[in-house]
């Protein structure tokens, strides 16, 4: 494993951060939103149990998630032959593991708290089970967007898992957060601060966009 002594190209690092976090948020959204909606519409014992498990997973330390994904992707692990360790795809997998429970849990909560009248109205108007789920999801869109925002926030600011699974290889798996850690360790404070500002600007831009979308859905 080649840990870079100095931070690499800022543009490349920023682009990879966005790519890894954006992809992992997208994948986690595609997994979590349908399942969260399905479970949120069911007030059964098993759904409650799953909700409790998910809330516990909210607190899953990213380094632990990273370690688990590392073991799965390592040469001796079940997915070792795929050669995903120390690759951006491996980092995406690690972030999906971290963000999916968050997006799923929040989606489940917001769907289950949608007014009973929404479900009754769609039902009375003739909606089948699938159409009812889509209607409830549409009414809960602002909450689901919040779930995605929180998931992306967790992904872009996460450092432990991507460090373990990505390895911070120069020009290949360097992202903003891991580079800041390395910069600080090497007293490259101005470079670390630059990356920190970029991280902040990205977060502000994404949240501002999602906030506007949220406002639009609430109209």
């Amino acid at each position, binding site marked *: 494993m080649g840990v870079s002594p100095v931070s690499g190209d800022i543009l490349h690092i920023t682009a990879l951060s966005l790519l890894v976090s954006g992809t992992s948020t997208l994948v986690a959204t595609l997994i979590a939103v349908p399942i969260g909606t399905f479970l949120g519409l069911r007030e059964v014992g098993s759904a409650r149990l799953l909700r409790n498990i998910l809330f516990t997973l909210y607190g899953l330390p990213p380094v632990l998630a990273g370690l688990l994904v590392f073991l799965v992707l390592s040469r001796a692990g079940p997915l070792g032959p795929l050669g995903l360790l120390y690759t951006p795809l491996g980092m995406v997998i690690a972030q999906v593991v971290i963000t999916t429970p968050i997006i799923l849990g929040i989606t489940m909560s917001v769907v289950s708290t949608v007014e009973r009248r929404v479900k009754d109205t769609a039902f*009375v108007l*003739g909606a089948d089970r699938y159409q009812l789920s889509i209607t409830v999801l549409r009414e809960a869109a602002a909450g689901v967007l919040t779930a995605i925002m929180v998931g992306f926030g967790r992904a872009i600011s996460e450092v432990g898992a991507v460090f373990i699974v990505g390895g911070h290889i120069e020009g290949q798996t360097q992202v903003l957060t891991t580079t800041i850690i390395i910069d600080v360790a090497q007293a490259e404070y101005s470079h670390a601060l630059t990356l920190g500002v970029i991280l902040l600007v990205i977060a502000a831009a994404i949240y501002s966009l999602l906030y506007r979308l949220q406002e639009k859905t609430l109209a």
Partner: protein
Amino acid sequence: MTMSLDVAGLVKSFREREVLRGIDVRVAPGEIFAIVGPSGAGKTTLLRCIDFLLSPEAGDIRYDGQAAPSEPAPMIALRRRIGMVAQNPYLFRGTASYNVSFGLCIRDVEGGELETRTMEALTGVGLAGVAGTRASVLSAGEAQRVAFARAVVVRPDLLLLDEYTANLDPANVNILESAVREYNRSTGATVVLVTHNMFQAKRLATRVALLLEGRIVEAGPVREFFESPRDPRTLAFVRGEYAF
């Protein structure tokens, strides 16, 4: 475009409280049938049982003489023949026309037909001008009229109205009562109207039933019901003297 309704021995409880205590009622195809009674008599519960929102503990409901099917597809087909307007209807996020077109969209009506029928339904309640207005900014009267248009745009064979003009001003009440008469006249659909407003029952219904404490006390043609009731409780209710 019509449906008969037969309810026999319907019982529904919420915890220890028995709300419906063996309801027997028959609604003929094409009639406007009003169920009157004080608040808490079980009127809404009865409509919610008829529209599958509640499951009764005992009794039988037949639609055109048939029990509700257990298979999902025929069940959805039956549900789609029944429309309902609630006292406080929920309007989905979006415009008035989105709300009205909802039932058509889920029935795969598209394009020009979707647009035409949506506008016709809105025009029918005098709201063509608010088609593009967000539902959240509509007045209570407009919202109720949109909810009515949303229910009838799909041309249900059985229309259930649950205190659908309660708390509205006379102008909106008049528009909505005319809309019910017109829908019943033009389609022949059966209408079951639940109300505590005897005057509305008198104005709209062909037959009326009194529901008291979970039981049908008396049912009959509107004139007979109001002018020569058989049961003393009906007489007291009609005179506004019934002590609840």
